[in-house]
């Protein structure tokens, strides 16, 4: 009898925990505003002009997304191909919202343009080919690239090394997040990335033109750097307008696996402990901590390009800036946001 009561209690506790987990999951999920599954325009080959919004794709093949191109008449084709999709974006009220493109799973590498603007890339194209076929594609769509209530064009450059290729499976559509952190500049999307370590990489004028692109936030293992452990650097140029000289400013860098050092325009902004100290302490929890750096607005150059350089050390397993939120905003706006949430 007593045992029975205990069992019932266990079941109750389990149900409660699951409810809590579900609630949490629901709190962070996004709502779909447009389903983009269905017929897309398609062409094999590779031409950067195909990213442009006014390119005439009327004579391209029609293909189903998501589905391997091998199943749709391109049997045995490996190499480059492009997908294009024209669509009308609903005229939603986009105040206080952020938009994302879900592109399911792409086999092996892709690069995505919206109305001619690069929004992200996953995996690595030849000559340094690296597949990311098992990474779900979620791209941040800056609002300034979009036309609400009007026609928009998505172009996807894909490279497949072998076997099935293309946008093969998963959810494809445009999703909206309500009440996100009101960033002045959202750091989600393409960053420059290089494995290895060199302190010159923190310098704002360092030439990173030949660096690879990487999507943030997402573990580098999902982006062509399988099993890479050790040092790597992220760099991001960003532009802010407005006055910051007398402001306190917050930089969020989400979660980073394992340790990081952050430089803004060449100046060190955090954290308090350097990577070497974390290594010495063998800190095993740092990867789960949200990175929030509080800086003096004087470090920012208004109406100019600013450079954020992040030195990362991964001691094993997944690595890199793997989870958001990432962006910059004034402290008072961050506090308002935080307090309104509370």
């Amino acid at each position, binding site marked *: 009898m007593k045992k029975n009561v205990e069992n019932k209690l266990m079941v109750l506790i389990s149900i409660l925990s699951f409810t809590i987990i579900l609630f949490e999951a629901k709190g962070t999920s996004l709502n779909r505003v447009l389903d983009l599954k269905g017929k897309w325009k398609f062409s094999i080959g590779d031409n950067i002009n195909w990213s442009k919004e006014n390119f005439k794709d009327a004579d391209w093949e029609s293909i189903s997304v998501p589905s391997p191109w091998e199943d749709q008449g391109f049997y045995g084709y490996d190499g480059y191909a492009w997908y294009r999709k024209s669509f009308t974006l609903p005229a939603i009220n986009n105040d206080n919202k952020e938009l994302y493109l879900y592109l399911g799973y792409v086999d092996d590498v892709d690069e995505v343009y919206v109305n001619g603007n690069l929004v992200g890339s996953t995996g690595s194209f030849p000559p340094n080919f690296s597949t990311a076929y098992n990474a779900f594609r979620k791209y941040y769509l800056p609002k300034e690239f979009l036309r609400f209530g009007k026609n928009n064009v998505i172009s996807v450059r894909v490279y497949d090394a072998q076997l099935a290729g293309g946008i093969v499976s998963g959810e494809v559509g445009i999703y909206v997040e309500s009440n996100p952190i009101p960033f002045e500049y959202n750091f989600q999307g393409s960053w420059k990335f290089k494995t290895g370590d060199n302190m010159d990489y923190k310098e704002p004028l360092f030439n990173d033109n030949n660096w690879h692109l990487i999507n943030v936030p997402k573990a580098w293992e999902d982006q062509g750097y399988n099993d890479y452990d050790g040092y790597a650097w992220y760099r991001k140029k960003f532009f802010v307008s407005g006055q910051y000289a007398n402001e*306190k400013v917050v930089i969020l860098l989400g979660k980073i696996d394992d340790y990081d050092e952050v430089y803004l325009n060449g100046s060190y902004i*955090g*954290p308090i402990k350097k990577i070497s100290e974390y290594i010495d302490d063998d800190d095993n929890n740092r990867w789960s901590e949200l990175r929030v750096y509080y800086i003096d607005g004087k470090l920012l150059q208004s109406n100019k390009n600013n450079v954020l350089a992040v030195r990362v050390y991964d001691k094993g397993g997944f690595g890199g800036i793997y989870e958001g939120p990432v962006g910059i905003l004034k402290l008072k706006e961050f*506090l308002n946001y935080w307090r309104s949430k509370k």
Partner: protein
Amino acid sequence: MSIINNYKSGCYNFHDNFLQSFTSHDCIETFEYIKRSIIAVYLKNKLISIGMKTKILGITVLIMLAVTFSGNNVSASDYKTLINLAGYWKFNLGDDKAWADPKLDDKSWDNIKAPGAWENQGYIGYDGYAWYRKKVVIPSIEQNRTLMLMISNIDDVDEVYVNDHLIGHLGLFPPSYSTAYGWDRKYYVPIEFINQDAENTIAVRVYDGGGEGGIVGDKIKLCLDADEDFLALNLAGDWKFKIFDKKSWKEPDLDDSNWATLEVPMHWESQGYFNLDGYAWYRKSFVLPKELENKKVFLVLGKIDDYDEVYLNGKKIGETSMLEGHHSFFGGDDNWWGNSGDWQLKRIYEIPKNIIKNGNNVIAVRVYDSGQAGGIYEGPIGLMDEESVNEFQKKYHMNENIFQTIFDFIFE
């Protein structure tokens, strides 16, 4: 036994999960609670004569319960709250010594609650420097009263300014960073720094080395010590202080003018001697008040961490081992510094008539601190006549008597 022996060290042991969240003040309160709980067990056991095993089990359970439910009990000292400073404070990230200035315009600063970690008030993941400021009208304070600022506690390092005067600090700021998280802040506030019946500015500089930060714990308040009512002469305030140990430092005619000045009562860690363990001497001269002349006089030195020998005019008048409660607490350890309960005994020493003089007298106190906080850290400090000392002892005697009985009983 181990819980009891850990009682003091646990207060300052940051890595001890079990006691991690307890400040020393909590410990004192906890101890009061344990004390009461144990009385209950003791009486119960006497009545029904259950076996020793059950007794120990019962005590253990009650100690666990006491530790769990502590926090709402009487304090071992009688500090009366003058002003509760809990509530909204002005708050700003960064570090600038100019922020201690009462004239600073802090209107643009944020408002956050203290006590309460700043992480829970929007400053997620912030480590580093921040300042708190609060303006407060302090009423006029009777002469010869000691004002104390009590904060429990600060994560990790702090400096406290009253009207731009540094009154106390604990822990070490970078580059030689050392946390003082978990330590009770008990700062002596010199009355001459206070604007009585007027506005005062309290500024707290805080450095957080990781995890949660800020003024945390459960209290921040200005207090007066009600036990100073018993004093005929209050000797709190500036004392002469010197570290290390020399027999000759007890002599009344010693020139101590080049010694450091320390506030009493306040841990020496809060006055620039962080991490100091071992020997140090305090000296203070006083003029015997007329009304005490030719009377039996007692020197009261509050509480001292950990052990003291007290000299008046070069003659020894007392030491910790003479105090009531010294041996019976933890079963007479021959090493006098091993008596881990001594740091919380009230120091009351009768001054032999042939030693005290009308006119000028010199007190010299040799102190040994075996670890963590040290020094003359809690009042009342001064002289009492026989009548007052009896009342003072009576006020606490009940508790301590039962306390002894219980511990004798447990460790019989």
